[in-house]
């Protein structure tokens, strides 16, 4: 089991969700986040006061998937979230030790 965490551009969320459900991912968790990477922030100017805004709004998508689906999932996110410009985001993959479905008590791959 793998946890796929993708940081993407907010306006790409719908496309990513659609691509993931098309390949059979059962569920994702979405969080609005802020961060900085290579994409530069911007400057805001209010009369004489200048503020550099370093942190840009992004969306974090998390999906727990069976290891067998991993490549498909990565490809789906990569294709759907890409614009080709700096700031498209990153995908992180990490192992999952255990999963439990709270309602039934199922665990492991059955709980995904």
């Amino acid at each position: 089991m793998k946890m796929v965490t993708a940081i993407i551009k907010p306006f790409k969320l719908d496309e990513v969700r659609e691509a993931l459900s098309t390949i059979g991912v059962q569920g994702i968790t979405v969080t609005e986040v802020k961060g900085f990477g290579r994409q530069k922030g911007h400057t805001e100017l209010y009369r004489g006061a200048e503020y550099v805004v370093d942190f840009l709004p992004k969306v974090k998508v998390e999906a727990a998937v069976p290891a067998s689906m991993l490549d498909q999932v990565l490809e789906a996110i990569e294709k759907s979230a890409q614009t080709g410009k700096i700031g498209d985001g990153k995908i992180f993959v990490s192992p999952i030790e255990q999963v439990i479905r709270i309602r039934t008590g199922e665990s492991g791959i059955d709980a995904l």
Partner: protein
Amino acid sequence: MKKIFMLITLLAVLCGFSAGVSAEDLVVVEEAVTAAVAPAEAAAAEVAAAPVPDKGDTTWMMLSTLLVILMIVPGLSLFYGGLVRAKNMLSVLSQVFGIFALISVLWVIYGYSLAFGDGGSMNWLIGDAAKLFLAGMTGDSTAATFTDGVVIPEFTFVAFQLTFAAITTALIIGGFAERIKFGALMVFSALWFTFSYLPIAHMVWATGGYLFEKGALDFAGGTVVHINAGIAALVGAIVIGKRIGYGKEPMAPHNLPMTMIGASLLWVGWFGFNAGSNLEATGGAALALLNTIVATAAAALTWMASEKLLRGKASMLGIASGAVAGLVAVTPAAGLVGPMGAIALGAVVGPVCLWAVSGLKKALGYDDSLDVFGIHAVGGIIGAIGTGIFVSPALGGVGVDGYTMSGQVMTQATGVLVTVVWSGVVSFVLFKLVDLVMGLRVSEEAEREGLDTSSHGERAYQM
């Protein structure tokens, strides 16, 4: 300590009132004696000759009064409110609303009499106590206008002038927004209104006032309102000190659309302020109204263009700030200059005020939170001096008797200087006094938490 101070103030005020009332009684008695002695025919003729207010003028002045109230309670509140951080929104709204209510009451109790009465030997500076509590005033009482034989109901004049006193005092809060104690501000406002607004209004607008007699031109209050308040705000910002984190932490405006709504309400209300200052619904009011459109538009355009040229982007806040600067500059000039003169005045004030709120402010290092000095004092000074230039008939102005440009500009500069010095000194003394007695500034913890919850126990936005 607080209670003792309040008691002393109350006692002093009461003593003043009782003295005033007895003086008033005396005057009434004297009048009665004269009336009894004078022949009945002469009295009858006098009554017949008394001018009657025109219904159009009266309506216009009541409408103008409402417009100026629109400038203050929603207008200035939202203009200022949008510029502060979300945690201080309600404190700004409370301050403006509270000051409006306070000054309204003080104005009819003693303000009007001291501002527009005849102070005898002190008349160059201040009025008298004859009309404390509006004594003797009825619906039939009248106030003079700029035309001989034309009058308006005195109650209308009292109400119109009330709004000027209120907005001037409320303007000051922008200088030290986000860090002042609410109670201290209310006490300061009452004192400042008494010792700075009333004498300056009297000197500029009342017959016999020092600047009035010198021939200083101030159609709707460039010196009385804007320079006066702008200087007080600067002194306040310096005495109270910078906000915690000023220049280090971001303090971006929390809601610029509200600032835009506020600026627009200010613009609309300003027609009452400027065109209403004509006191009659005549061509003079129409000229002031037109000037209040075009000067404002010109200043919004030049601020916008300067931002685009100097910084690459024209901002909404810049356009709105330019408009307010234009309104300030055309205030003393409104009924005195031609429309092209008004445009010139507006065009100049845009870039200068932009410099005042950025370059000048940075160089001097004070934290005038909402740029009351940079826009109202600086814009007011340009307007006051500019009025001396553009009132010239050669430049399309209405002209004044015995006009020479250099002479009038010198007179205008005198008006500016007197106002700057008077307001500066009085404000400094009063801020220090209030600070000593009750403290001006909230605690560091309260400031970080935000004044909405720490001073008012409520929150503007439930998120």
